[in-house]
């Protein structure tokens, strides 16, 4: 049956009776949900940009995000820790792709292995974030409290820390939900739910979400740490 639809696809894609995109509705909804979530994050980052553009001064991120776990106090290692976090997330994205790919091959063992790696990556990222938050908090930074000065040495408003904690917090919340979703996927895989259904499409949708989290981090990382 699907052979027929596939060969007829080019001519009557939009003719009704089938998906014009050749995808099931769940994946379609996930895509459009991610688009709407992109607007949520977009609005956050654009607000951050707007406030930054309307301020006379802004702190230099390299002077703030410069420490590293277990490093001596006062170490000056800007961008190092956040690069580690970025790579953790990229690698966890790769393992997620591999899990999705293994799902397409109906290779249960590979799915399990890669999902576990992805979950470990997610937890590692969250731990890094927790450490960083804790470290900044110990320096006196929190919502409504900004101990750092502007790059030119003038008094800074609290909006640097306000936005940092709000946006990384919202992203961290997404990572957390992603980890929870992946754990559910892992349990479902171990219980042979997908084997019985004959496909691993749920993993694919979970994968889309996880990559989106990675994607958002690309933007957050650039906006807060690099520029």
């Amino acid at each position: 049956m699907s052979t027929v639809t596939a060969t007829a696809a080019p001519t009557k894609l939009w003719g009704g009776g089938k998906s014009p995109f050749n995808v099931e509705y769940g994946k379609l909804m996930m895509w459009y949900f991610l688009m709407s979530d992109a607007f949520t994050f977009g609005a956050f980052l654009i607000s951050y940009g707007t406030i930054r553009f309307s301020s006379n001064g802004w702190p230099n991120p390299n002077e703030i995000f410069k420490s590293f776990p277990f490093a001596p106090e006062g170490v000056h290692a800007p961008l190092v820790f956040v690069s580690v976090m970025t790579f953790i997330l990229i690698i966890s994205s790769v393992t997620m792709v591999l899990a999705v790919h293994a799902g397409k091959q109906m290779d249960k063992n590979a799915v399990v292995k890669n999902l576990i790696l992805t979950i470990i990556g997610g937890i590692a990222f969250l731990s890094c974030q927790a450490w960083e938050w804790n470290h900044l908090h110990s320096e006196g930074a929190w919502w409504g409290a900004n101990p750092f000065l502007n790059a030119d040495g003038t008094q800074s408003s609290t909006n640097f820390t306000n936005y940092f904690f709000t946006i990384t917090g919202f992203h961290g919340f997404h990572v957390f939900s992603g980890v929870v979703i992946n754990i559910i996927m892992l349990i479902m895989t171990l219980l042979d739910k997908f084997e019985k259904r004959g496909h691993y499409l749920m993993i694919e949708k979970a994968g889309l979400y996880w990559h989106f989290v990675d994607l958002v981090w690309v933007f957050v990382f650039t906006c807060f740490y690099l520029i």
Partner: protein
Amino acid sequence: MSSEVALDIHSGVSSLHVENQSHDSHVHHHETFIYKYVFSMDHKMIAKQFLITGMFWAVLGGLMSVLFRLQLGYPDSTFPWLEDILGKWAKGGHITPEAYYALVTTHGTVLVFFVLTAGLSGTFANFLIPLQVGARDMASPFMNMLSFWFFFIAGIVMLSSIFVETGPFSGGWTAYPPLSALGDASPGSKTGMDLWIVSMALFVVSSLLGGLNYIATVLNMRTKGMSMTRLPLTIWALFFTAVLGVLSFPVLFSGFILLIFDRNFGTSFYLSDIFVNGAGALPNEGGSAILYQHLFWFLGHPEVYIILLPAMGMVSEILSTNSRKPIFGYMAMIGSMFAIAILAFLVWAHHMFVTGLNPFLGSIFVLLTLLIAVPSAIKVFNWLTTLWRGNIRFTPAMMFAIGFVSLFISGGLTGIWLGNSALDIHLHDTYFVIAHFHIVMGVASMFGMFAGIYHWFPKMYGRYLNNTLGYVHFWITIVGAYLIFWPMHYEGLAGMPRRYYDYSIWESFKQFGDLNRFISTVAMIVFATQILFLANFFYSIFKGRKLRSTNPWGSNTLEWTTPIKPGHGNWPGEIPEVYRWAYDYGKDGHDFISQTTPIGADESVH
């Protein structure tokens, strides 16, 4: 569940055939009361839930407007009965300023979000999309149910805010900071605002769940032969509405999250340079109140079209059906709706011309705003030319549809004035604005909604609404709407600002005392007429004239090929296949040709 079935085909290339079978099994099993009427997953029941919840809110929101119109029309009189129902909010039978602002705010929020968003597109998207595209149900009936219940809980939270000690939020439906960000700003900014924001956040979730479902259903679940260009315009309109909601509500959501932090966690996203009487200067520094307005109106303007587009779609369908003529310019209608949907995202700052917005940026927003006049005018011309030389049947639905066009023209024209940033210096925040958006967005969309209810009531309940009451309802409402809002243009041009509590103490606005009293009187009459409509509605559900044929209006669209009272799954047998567009009226000597009729051998091309 259909999700499982769709997944079973692995590639997701849905074969409706398989889905049909699963839904057939749905039809047969017995439904308990709870699953049939409360936690229903049938799109038709969910639509009715949206409709009736929307009606509840419409009555409440309308009643609020009557109460504050009492204050505006009779600022010097006292009404002891008001103290009986409002207690301390109407000491001595006189609405207090706090209560007045709370009423205005809640009226706006409730009408815009609960009635004209959930009540309008929630009802008709749920009801019409599966029926008109030829699907058993929504793509995800479960998410659809959640959508309603999130809306319902949002409503409960909003309702509860009316009963808290400090009253509901009273800073205007737009909830601008600092009034919304500082608890010290006004009594309503305390618990009332917390509840308001929770309610709105839940509402965003509801509209997102619904919107994703509508989009996926329209794209993926069309029956065989139902190509996008054979869809009735209702579906196109509801589709664009859903897209607008999915892309703009998240921005509001972000704005609200920042607002929550400002309220509760000492941040200053929106706050700077603030001095509160009694509390002194606040430490908040570096924020921008205008940022909130930008975020709010990034949703707020698409929201206008979220409200208006479903009405436009239904009116197109009803005008064509009851003129017994094809809709004029079908593709132009789709194109103009598409243009409106895009422009909706580009014009938000025209609500903020006088906030200190950069004038150059403002001029670009003027240009983009005035561009909306083009697709709007295309639509108006197409409606008028659809009516032109038609064989018009003046059913109540048709009357309301024509009324919609009338209101859309008269309200839309003043929009061209308001879109100019220079004129806006004089007109912003006056009664001119009130008149404009109430006519073009509020009343016009209500008319679209009434038209939809009168037209599809037979499909919903298998009975007719009473026609005579329908005509009474129509004439009083349209005459009343113009009598209420037309004079407000004059007041606004004279500079009378909106949101004032008592105009009689202003030398410049005293002259409008009689006019205000007149407006208030008409408002009460119109409100009473809506109660008449509700009586008609609920009476007809149980006692209305019964439907004898499946297609009472001689309509082409698919919903009229279902049984009079379709079960869960809509069509008892196979879903019919579609062979033509939805507007073959008066073609080749036939009064109408249903979409399910195959193209004849000697048929002319439309």
